[in-house]
C-alpha cells in the first residue's frame, strides 16, 4: 500500500469536510477517509488499468484549505474564493418536468412549475460573458417546453456563443417541426442520452424501449444541421459491455454524430442505493474497455486527460473519421504539452472552443468543402476532414458523496447557474447517504 496524495473529502452521511488520503492498493486506488461521528470509508477510484501517477501528471495537490465549509458553503453561496478554475460550461435548468423516470438521474427533479422565460433571461444575464459563454439547457427534459426556441433565441441575444441542449431525444424524434424551430433559433448542438444499441439497455435504465427513438432523433437533427453527441451513462453489468458498439454506432453516423461522451454512472441526484465499490465504473476501466471493445480502433494512448480539467474528472480523444469508417487519431500524450499555446492560452476558453468546434456541425464554407483526398498531411485535406468529420471520444466522471475529492472540486469548470450563483456540478447534485 502506497500513499500518493493527501486531500479533502466529506463524510458521505453528514457532509462535513474531512481529510482524505489517496492510496494505491493491490486491487486498485482508493480514497480513504474517516468521520469522527460516522466511521471510516474506503472508496475505489481507480482500478490500476493505467498508471495513476502518470495520469495525474504535474497536477498540484490540494493545499491546506482555508474554507473548512467547502463544499457546503459552495452549495449555498456559489463558488468560494478558493475555487481555482473559471467557468467553461454553465448548466441552466429550464424545467423540472420529465417524460422519463430513469433509474439513475443526476437531476432527480420533482415536477415543479417551470421557471418563466423572464426569469431565465435574468439568470443568463447574471452569468453571461458576451461571445464566450457556453450554456447547457438542461432539466428535467428541456424539450417539454414549447417555448424552448424562444429560450435559445434569448440566450443568443444575451451574448451566449454556444447553446447546448441536453435531451433524451423523445421530442426530437417525434416532432420534426420542433427540431427545425430550435435549429433556426440558434441551437449549437445536442447532447443526447444514448445508453446502448439494443432496447434491453433502455428497458433497464430508462423504463422503455428507446433505440428507434434515438435513431429518429439523430435523423431529424441531421436534417436541420444540428450535430448530436451521444451521451451514455455506463452502468457495470447493464451496458458496460456495449461501449464498443456505442462507439461504432456513432462512427457510422459521422458527421451527424459528432462524438461520444461517456459518463460512468454517477451516484448523485436520484440513486437506487448507496454505491458499493463493485458498482463503480472507473475512468481507467472505461479507457481499457474502449480499447478492448473496439478491437484497437481506439487505443487508450489516444485518450488523454484534458489540460483544462482535473485529470481524474475525465479524458478526451480527438479523431477524424475516414471514409472507410476508421479513426485517424489527433490526440497523443505529449512531452511538450505545456508549450502548446499557438491557439488559445486561456484554459476555460480553450476547452469551450474545443467543445464548440467539435460538437457543432460545420456550416458550408470554402474551408470545409468535402474533399476526395484522405491525405492527412495535406493541409487542405486535413482541414476539410477535421471540420466535417471530426469525432471526439470524451468522458466526464462525476463525483458523489463517497468519492468526492475537493482537490478535483476546486478545479471544476462545469457550473450550475442558480439564482445568480454558480455552483460546481457535483456539489449541486450531491446526494448524502444519510438515509441509507
Amino acid at each position, binding site marked *: 500500500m502506497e500513499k500518493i496524495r493527501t486531500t479533502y473529502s466529506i463524510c458521505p452521511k453528514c457532509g462535513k469536510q474531512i481529510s482524505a488520503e489517496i492510496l494505491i492498493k493491490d486491487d486498485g486506488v482508493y480514497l480513504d477517509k474517516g468521520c469522527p461521528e460516522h466511521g471510516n470509508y474506503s472508496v475505489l477510484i481507480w482500478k490500476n488499468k493505467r498508471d495513476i501517477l502518470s495520469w495525474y501528471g504535474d497536477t498540484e495537490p490540494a493545499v491546506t484549505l482555508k474554507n473548512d465549509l467547502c463544499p457546503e458553503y459552495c452549495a449555498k453561496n456559489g463558488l468560494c474564493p478558493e475555487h481555482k478554475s473559471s467557468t467553461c460550461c454553465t448548466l441552466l435548468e429550464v424545467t423540472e418536468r420529465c417524460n422519463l423516470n430513469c433509474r439513475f438521474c443526476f437531476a432527480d427533479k420533482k415536477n415543479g412549475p417551470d421557471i418563466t422565460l423572464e426569469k431565465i433571461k435574468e439568470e443568463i444575464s447574471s452569468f453571461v460573458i458576451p461571445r464566450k459563454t457556453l450554456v447547457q439547457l438542461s432539466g428535467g427534459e428541456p424539450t417539454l417546453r414549447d417555448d424552448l426556441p424562444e429560450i435559445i433565441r434569448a440566450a443568443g441575444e444575451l451574448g451566449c456563443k454556444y447553446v447546448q441542449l441536453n435531451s433524451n431525444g423523445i421530442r426530437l424524434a417525434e416532432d420534426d417541426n420542433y427540431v427545425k424551430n430550435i435549429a433556426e433559433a440558434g441551437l449549437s448542438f445536442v447532447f443526447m442520452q444514448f445508453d446502448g444499441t439494443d432496447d434491453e439497455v433502455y428497458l433497464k435504465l430508462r423504463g422503455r424501449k428507446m433505440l428507434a427513438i434515438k435513431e429518429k432523433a439523430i435523423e431529424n437533427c441531421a436534417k436541420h444541421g444540428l450535430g448530436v453527441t451521444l451521451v451514455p451513462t455506463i452502468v457495470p453489468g447493464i451496458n458496460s459491455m456495449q461501449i464498443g458498439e456505442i462507439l461504432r454506432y456513432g462512427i457510422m453516423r459521422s458527421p451527424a454524430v459528432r462524438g461520444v461522451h461517456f459518463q460512468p454512472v454517477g451516484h448523485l441526484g436520484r440513486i437506487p442505493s448507496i454505491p458499493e465499490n463493485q458498482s463503480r465504473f472507473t475512468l481507467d476501466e472505461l479507457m481499457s474497455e474502449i480499447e478492448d471493445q473496439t478491437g484497437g480502433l481506439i487505443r487508450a494512448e489516444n485518450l488523454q486527460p484534458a489540460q483544462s480539467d482535473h485529470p481524474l474528472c475525465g479524458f478526451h480523444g*480527438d479523431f477524424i473519421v475516414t471514409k472507410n469508417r476508421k479513426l485517424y487519431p489527433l490526440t497523443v500524450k505529449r512531452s511538450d504539452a505545456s508549450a502548446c499555446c499557438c491557439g488559445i492560452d486561456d484554459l476555460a476558453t480553450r476547452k469551450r472552443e474545443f467543445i464548440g468546434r467539435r460538437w457543432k456541425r460545420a456550416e458550408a464554407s470554402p474551408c470545409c468543402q468535402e474533399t476526395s483526398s484522405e491525405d492527412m498531411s495535406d*493541409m487542405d485535406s486535413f482541414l476539410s476532414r477535421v471540420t466535417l468529420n471530426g469525432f471526439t471520444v470524451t468522458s466526464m466522471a462525476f463525483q458523489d458523496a463517497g468519492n468526492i475529492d475537493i482537490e478535483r472540486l476546486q478545479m471544476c469548470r462545469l457550473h450550475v447557474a442558480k439564482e445568480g450563483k454558480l455552483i460546481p456540478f457535483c456539489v449541486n447534485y450531491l446526494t448524502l447517504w444519510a438515509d441509507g
Partner: protein
Amino acid sequence: MEENKKLICSRCCVDFKMYKANFSYLDHSFNTEVMRCPSCGQVYIPEDLAKGKMMQVEVSIEDK
C-alpha cells in the same frame, strides 16, 4: 503580398518558385505550397496563410 506578384530572394537574387513545404506542429506534419527560393531554400509565408490555414490547423490539433 499582392496576388501574382513576383518575389525575388533577397540573398540569391533569383525568382521564388512554388514549392510543397512541410510544417510540423505537436507531432503532426503537414504540407502546403509556398513560395521558395530554389537556390537557398528560404521560404515566404504570407500573412493570410499564417493567420488562416496554418492557424486553423494548429488550433485543430491542440488539446482540450
